[in-house]
């Protein structure tokens, strides 16, 4: 029969339409909670997928990467111990070359000291590739999760300096718990090795 194909196809759209309501009734109010949003991008959902951004937001997975930030550890009396040692590796691997690092020197001896005196990322140019974080040997630069960065004037706002880039290690731990744990363990192991080597040497 001519037209059978079309009718069959329309059946599919009708099913989609109804499935949304069936899903809605089945899941109930929960549909609009965080859990419900997560369910809406699972294999089981049949009907509508749409998430009402910005009222609802999809959960960001741990590995999600956006603009990188610099990590500092909080000292006992609140001082910021910046992890970065200005080694320059991130600025060398950065594909669009959007990281600028100003190394600082000891005013007396003139020797370079680890903490950078300034650190810039041009976030208009940053391609969010994650290379900087991947190759930083000191776990000092990490890819952030904040993707709502629109500004009215990009010229005034979009070159991030050190102050704007710095975030506490606790924040890092909160958004990337697994990575944080792995890196902390690796560092601890290294320290322990160093300590034993040191004590051996002394002995």
């Amino acid at each position, binding site marked *: 029969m*001519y*037209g*059978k*194909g*079309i009718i*069959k*196809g329309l059946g*599919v*759209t009708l099913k*989609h339409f109804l499935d949304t309501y069936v899903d809605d009734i089945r899941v109930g109010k929960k549909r609009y909670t965080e859990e419900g949003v997560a369910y809406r*991008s*699972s*294999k089981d959902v049949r009907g509508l*997928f749409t998430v009402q951004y910005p009222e609802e937001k999809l959960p960001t*997975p*741990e*590995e*999600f*990467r956006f603009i990188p930030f610099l990590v500092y550890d909080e000292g006992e009396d609140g001082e910021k111990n910046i992890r970065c040692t*200005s080694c*320059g*590796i991130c*600025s*060398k*691997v*950065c*594909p669009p*070359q959007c*990281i*600028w*690092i*100003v*190394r600082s020197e000891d005013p007396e001896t003139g020797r*370079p000291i680890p903490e950078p005196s*300034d*650190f*810039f990322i*041009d976030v*208009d*140019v940053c*391609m*969010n*590739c*994650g*290379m900087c974080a*991947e*190759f930083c040997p000191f776990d000092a630069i990490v*890819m952030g999760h904040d993707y709502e960065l629109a500004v009215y004037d990009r010229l005034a706002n979009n*070159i991030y300096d050190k102050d704007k880039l710095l975030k506490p290690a606790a924040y890092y731990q909160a958004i990337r718990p*697994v990575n944080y744990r792995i890196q902390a363990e690796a560092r601890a192991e290294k320290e322990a090795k160093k300590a034993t080597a040191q004590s051996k040497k002394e002995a």
Partner: protein
Amino acid sequence: MTETTLAIANDIEARFPQCVTPDERGGYEGYLIEAGKLVEFATALRDEFGYDFLSSVTGVDYLPDEKMEVVYHTYRSTGGGAFVFKVQTPRQTPSVPSLCGIFPGAEFQEREAWDLLGIHFQGHPDLRRILMWEGFEGHPLRKDWKEAYYESDAKPFDSRWPVGEIYRAEDENPFKGNVVYPQGFDPDKWTPEGETALYAGMHEVETDEAMHTDQIVVNLGPQHPSTHGVFRMVATLDGETIVKLRPVMGYLHRNHEKIGERNTYLMNIPFTDRLDYLSSMTANWGYVQAVEKLLGPKTAAPERAEYIRVIMAEFTRISNHLMAIGALLNDLGAYFTPMLYALKERELILDIFEATAGSRMMCNYYRFGGLARDLPAGVYEKMRDLAFERLPRQIDELDRYLTENEVVIARCEGVGVLTPEEAIAYSAVGPVLRASGVPYDVRRADPYGIYERFDFDVAVRYHGDVYDRYLVRLDEIRQSIRILQQALDDLPEGEIMAGKPKYSMRVPAGEAYGRVEAPKGELGFYVVSDGSANPWRYHVRAPSFINLTALSKMCEGDKVADAVIILGSIDIVLGETDR
């Protein structure tokens, strides 16, 4: 070189004793052909030795040797390894005979080499610029060409560290305050030469109808919703019938290859994401494969990484084909319902990419010798859910929804036909080639990675029309699901990286051509290393670009409304076409 290619090489040397010499530079392969004998040689290669498929043509500027080189990669459409040959020409007056007469698929690629490197092809039917704009001066891929704001030959730039002098690159550009026109120049009255040549070529079609009717030239695009981006087709119409059609592209050109030649090897990986932005995983793979060939066997990826590479590539293929089908239906006028059903499934695949690679589309996931990171907890289960449950079910639904639809059939059947001979001659690849009855799939014809281990069929259809291209994509999704199910079942535990991840490495001098079966067809990367930290030459053989060579052929004789769906059935992404 395998044994068969070795035997063939001996035959060829015997057949052309004087003008064919093996390329003996370290790390290079193939043969050097004398320019005068090129056409004769290529004809013999195609007709006597069976190398009927010209995959890639590109140029290399060997500035220190004062030479230009044109590199050809040919294959047999029945499968097997490459036969590579090259022609050298003096750098001051680079000129080689065109191979368009033997391999029509060379047309756009030769135009590209002319445009970007200034190599002249004698006897080319339409040697105009193709990617740069018509008024452009110079040939940007030449090694001595420098862009308007130029910092240095190679990255990383010295100004970034240890004394980072922050500035915006746009502020350094001399054209910042927009362009200053030369005196007496009126942009409104100026038509670039290339444009005049293009229109001049459009008016000459004779028809043998008794009644004389005027033909008109119509521009479809560059701003046109159905063109999948900024893309233009100039068509000569006789009534509603297309008698001639020329694609015009390059609106999104950013000279990906020049950028790539200043990048270090590692930096190029995220840039390959931006070629075909719907399937970045396979683009990563093609590039990584080419560089791994240069690096040698010690960088072979571990087992687990090989499996994950296959899994990611097949998920990419499914998501790409879903988009292709959805977009084709959009072009047909079934506005956005099928597209959204396709997007829905793609969304779940992108969730997996996001959780693993960190980004939905710009995956940047493959590395030389492995992968950036292992699968995080929970992702494997999600993959299984999709591959075993959801996708098979949803693909069947899509099939039920569209395949037998009478309107789809009426619009697509017998439209945009490409015969198998034409498809091979025009260097068509991927679903376009396979819908024309040529069962050529790089995963089978010249296997890479671990594809030999999987049980799957090469999808093929025989009518070569738009409808068959749709069906081939549907078949391929089903085959990809088969591969996924096997790969997920067999996925071993273990490392995902050969050795430690390194940010700078020494790449031995030489050349390599890596090719993968990307969703849109054969995607090749030709990389030449001079032993330094940056590639000397970095060329992308883009399926979206080369498949367009056959567009005119497919459109001629069809109605103007069909041009849109024919283009949709090729499935191009302008990021890759224009590079």
